[in-house]
């Protein structure tokens, strides 16, 4: 029995092992699904964890693949699991040093829609965070230029939230040509 456990421990991916040693209090959950390691991280320590993942020489997750969010308001099971946090900000990382992919998820509550920006770590995060702000209304603290990116500047609402209708709220018919500065 003990031996089996040891074998299991050994096959544990390096990322999880290292995160458990260095940031054990930040981890809310961990999982390995379909070949990707998934960790759920406390919001106040998300930046520290991401910075650690990027700068640790053995892990070297130097490539930020994606930043996005999921509106979990219609997914009861996810809501219950993480203290009814409506949004889940998702970071996808890739290591060119053979550590593969890791997905870092951070629950964000609707009454405190802000999270530390990672633009200081990855330049590529700039537009990704702008898009997440545009589509979900999540604020990224410390972002150099947090504006709408896909929708017009005077647009109201956040289209990818679950309560936003697919066909919009009439913005495609109402139209003020004078207001737009092209």
């Amino acid at each position, binding site marked *: 029995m003990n031996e089996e456990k040891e074998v299991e421990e050994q096959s544990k991916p390096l990322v999880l092992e290292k995160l458990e040693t260095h940031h054990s209090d930040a981890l809310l959950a961990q999982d390995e699904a379909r070949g990707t390691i998934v960790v759920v991280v406390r919001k106040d320590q998300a930046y520290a964890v991401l910075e650690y993942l990027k700068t640790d020489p053995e892990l070297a997750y130097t490539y930020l693949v994606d930043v996005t969010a999921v509106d979990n308001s219609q*997914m009861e099971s996810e809501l219950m699991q993480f203290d009814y946090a409506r949004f889940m900000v998702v970071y996808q990382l890739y290591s*060119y040093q053979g550590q593969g992919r890791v*997905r870092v998820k951070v629950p964000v509550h609707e009454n405190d829609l802000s999270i530390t920006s990672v633009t200081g770590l*990855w*330049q590529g995060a700039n537009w990704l965070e702008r898009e997440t702000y545009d589509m979900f209304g999540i604020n990224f603290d410390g972002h150099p230029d947090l504006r709408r990116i*896909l929708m017009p500047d005077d647009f109201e609402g956040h289209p990818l939230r679950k309560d936003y209708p*697919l066909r919009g709220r009439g913005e495609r018919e109402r139209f003020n040509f004078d207001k737009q500065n092209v």
Partner: protein
Amino acid sequence: MQGGLERATGEKMVLNFGPQHPATHGTLRIVLELDGESVLKATPHAGYLHTGFEKLGEHLDYNQYIVVTDRMNYLSPLSNNFGYVLAVEQLLGLEVTKRCQYIRILMAELSRLADHLLWLGTAALDLGAFSVFLYSFREREKLYSIFEKTTGARLTTSYTRVGGVLRDLYAGCEEDVRQFVGNFPKALKETHTLLTRNRIWMDRTKGVGAISADDAINYGLTGPCLRATGVAHDIRKAEPYSSYDEVTFDVPVGTNGDAYDRYLVRMEEMIQSCGIVTQVLDNMPDGPVNLEDNKVTMPEKSDAYGHIEGLIHHFKIVMDGHGVQPPKGEHYCATESPNGELGFYIVSDGSGTAYRIRIRPPSFFHFQALPNMLEGGMVSDTVAVLGSLNVIAGELDR
């Protein structure tokens, strides 16, 4: 500036480039701050082609969404179809038949050729080389006729299905493809003679829009733009999917990461793709194309029309809430599209429509990194750099 031109010291001038400009290939917009001829600051703007693909994914079922992926990167729709169904299949835990995997590779590589050809034509057109545009469209039309015979459409192919493809290759496809691939290197050589050692082409692209390997990784560049900086990373090699580990090919890399290297890398990739296509045709396995899984794949048309079981089966697949239903969970699947890493992040709540579909487009990152390549250069280089990146608006804005 570098050529010893005197730097103008007048007032700063703001130049609005796009969204409707011949070199923006659609709907890109860059606001340039100029001092004379040199670019002080470049601010790219996105979103002029925002279509709501991700929102649409939450309302269409898994097979319906294939149609939408066509229209995302309209230079290589087959690669998008491929990347998307691969993500759904991995979410379902399915592996398609060997023949299907090979057919998909074949189509993905042909669409890589189609993409690079159009990039070549327009990038050269932007710099004044009109004949290259005509040459590459000549080859492209040959590819289109192969696509049309296989999928029924020139551009919006919608060829793949969850668990298979629309239909097997048509009779005579192998000869058509072999003939095309046989002639293609010769046709490409014509372009090489027109451009590669061309004084004007070299002057306008060498050392223009260079980006270092570290910056490229930091900005999240992928595909040919990353490889031009010297990073030999290709998802087909690093994380082989769908039998890509059974074909041999080289990953061409550049050294300087400038527009000229991006050109050379893409040119070589086309030759490598031809090699892959030939290998795939040589080793094409026999057997069924679609999975024999009644919960996922459609019945044969003759069954659906001729037998009650087939009809029920068809009905079950297309009815709301009866079709493809991946288990609850999430998955991110990356494929090497012609432009770079094309990823689909799908969150499933166990129903017939995805709870959330996120598309990770390569062009988004390339366009974002544009200021890094433009600032400090000349205003006329903007067109050369933008052309060399191959930013596709449909994929950028989704």
